């Protein structure tokens, strides 16, 4: 197990290095404009430009710049300053992290629970109308754009504009530490909207995985022993069938975060996603860069956690 963890951690370090390098290429080498002008905001003074050039070392060769960029990031955790608010990007991101984590973790838990339930029903009642409804509904949920589903649900249920005003609408987010009740209520709709697509994708996987497992020899053996069907399914089939679903969910964390950006935008939740959206609208390159970089690193680390937890549960995963 220790060897497995060390191997995974080393691989994650390689990946983090990759993320940082790709971000450098995207934000420093890829754009054709003068990086100093891009970071100076809409009204650059020559003085400000000179300061930025000096601080970023823009007149040095690209590999020196890359080295400086790495040093600032790794040693000082320095993402630069937003020219819109003149606050360090790092501070801005950390202020908004709780909202995004609330949204993403809640949606992930909700989607896994829903997926396992619906996928199991769809697998056990394959030919019944209920099973077919679940299978068909899952394809629709996968195909629906998350921001549009958000808009529809706001139109239907939000207290300010909804036809059936029962839930707090856009812009109603309160931090958990201020008011847990309101925090929960304001996140019900975003959680459901963000979870729907993922629940559908996982439910489809759960269905096919369970169908495959039920055809295996050890399930027949368990049935032949004469234990109840319920026990066969819960004890012998479900436990095995869930494994690929959890693996796929771990791989889908990146997509979840990308979808969270869209959900936060639709529901006006002050998280990293909304920060990304706002920085795009005002052309705030340093903030945009920081959110993409941090988001990508978070995803890589989250995948590591999922992998290690999975290896703890299932020893077979360690040999892979």
């Amino acid at each position, binding site marked *: 197990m220790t060897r497995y963890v060390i191997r995974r951690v080393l691989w994650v370090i390689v990946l983090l290095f990759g*993320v940082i390098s790709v971000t450098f290429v995207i934000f420093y080498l890829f754009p054709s*404009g003068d990086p100093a002008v891009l970071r100076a905001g809409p009204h650059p003074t020559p003085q400000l430009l000179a300061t930025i050039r000096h601080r970023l070392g823009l007149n040095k060769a690209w590999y020196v710049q890359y080295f400086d960029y790495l040093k600032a990031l790794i040693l000082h955790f320095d993402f630069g300053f937003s020219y819109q608010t003149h606050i360090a990007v790092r501070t801005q991101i950390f202020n908004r992290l709780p909202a995004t984590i609330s949204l993403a973790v809640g949606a992930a838990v909700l989607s896994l629970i829903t997926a396992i339930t619906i996928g199991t029903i769809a697998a056990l009642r394959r030919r019944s109308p209920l099973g077919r409804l679940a299978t068909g509904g899952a394809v629709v949920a996968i195909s629906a754009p998350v921001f*549009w589903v958000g808009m*529809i649900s706001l139109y239907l249920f939000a207290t300010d504009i909804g036809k059936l005003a029962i839930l707090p609408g856009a812009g109603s987010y309160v931090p958990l530490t201020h008011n847990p009740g309101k925090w929960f209520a304001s996140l019900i709709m975003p959680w459901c909207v963000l979870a729907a697509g993922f629940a559908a994708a996982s439910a489809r996987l759960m269905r096919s995985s369970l169908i495959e497992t039920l055809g295996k020899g050890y399930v027949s053996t368990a049935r032949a022993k004469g234990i109840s069907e319920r026990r066969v399914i819960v004890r012998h089939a479900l436990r095995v069938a869930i494994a690929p679903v959890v693996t796929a969910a771990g791989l889908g964390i990146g997509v979840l975060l990308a979808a969270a950006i869209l959900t936060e935008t639709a529901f006006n939740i002050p998280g990293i996603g909304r920060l990304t959206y706002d920085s795009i609208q005002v052309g705030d390159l340093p903030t945009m860069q920081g959110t993409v970089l941090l988001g990508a690193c978070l995803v890589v680390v989250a995948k590591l956690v999922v992998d290690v937890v999975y290896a703890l549960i299932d020893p077979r995963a360690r040999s*892979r």
Partner: protein
Amino acid sequence: MSIGPPELVADSETAAQEQFDGVDATEVGAPALPLFGRRLLADRAAMASAAFVLVLVLIAIFAPLIVKAVGAPGPYAADPSARDQFGDPTGPSPGALWPFIAMLAGAALATASRFAPVPPIKRYGWVLISGIAFLAGVALAIAFWPSAHHIFGVDKEFRDLFSRVLYGARLSLEVAAIAAAASLIIGLTFGLLVGYFRGSVGVAISRLIDALFALPLLLLALGMAAACKLARGCLGGVLHPGLAVVIVVIALVNSIFIARVMRDQVLSLREKRFVETARSLGTSNARIIFREILPGVLAPIAGYAALIIAQDVLFIAALSYLGIGIQFPRASWGAMLADANPVLGTAWWYMLFPGAALLLTVLAFNLLGDGLRDALNPRVSRP
């Protein structure tokens, strides 16, 4: 991902498949396609989606003609007379939506009839119901549309929403098709070469593909599009914000995905007995790749292509929704939805139609992709 030696594969079906593969490849290949076709034809959802995709492509190609035929003013012209008593943009003209409601109700009824307890209705009801619904839709359209000013209403700039939704289909399919084609060519080439030639360079590129695949590609693609937009151009001015960037970004992400899938397919095919036989007969590598391996991977890639187009259409819309996709004057569904966000409570039509068009398009490609994949995979049990 590991490929075990065939003799250890305990699963009887796989073992049977292995023996099957030992027979001359041409004998195996010949009857496989008709079976695939029969399975696909039997999949009603896939066939309905294929028909919808065909209609969608026709709509995209003939959008200007359709707009003219229904007397709509086109996607860019503002119609300042389309105001209600408060001076706000008007919604759909009265009666203009009946054709769509009739067809939707028909589709719902046809689906429901599959569960009817009466056997003849269960078997043939859907043909009758969808036929009637289609004719009713056409009749209602002829009755209501000539007198309708704006079938879907107008947007906040008083432009005709119906025309804009149709032109949006044009744009989505155009971008998705170009990006999918580019990524198929790149991904297929890399996948084939890296999967077949397992020298040190091949293995190194293979590892690189794995590493890239492990990165959060969607986020990085989003960052790339945003950087290009904020910098007003990239790659030394070669790429300008808008269409080109969206296509390049999507093609990059997709080709990594396709290359990986292809490589895994090729890795398992190259160990098969018919490839081994060809090799022992002294067949050249090029001939083995093109005559033995390529036919085997082309079929699964058709299913992937449909699923990838579905993902692309969604991603194009998401980029436009965030304001880093297609640039302003062109009509894109994502940008229309972004504009609809602030006026959600009042102008429901502005949100409903672009979103519904997006959902139906993605759904059709997803169902088609599922159908193709299931038809090709004999081990998937039919519901």
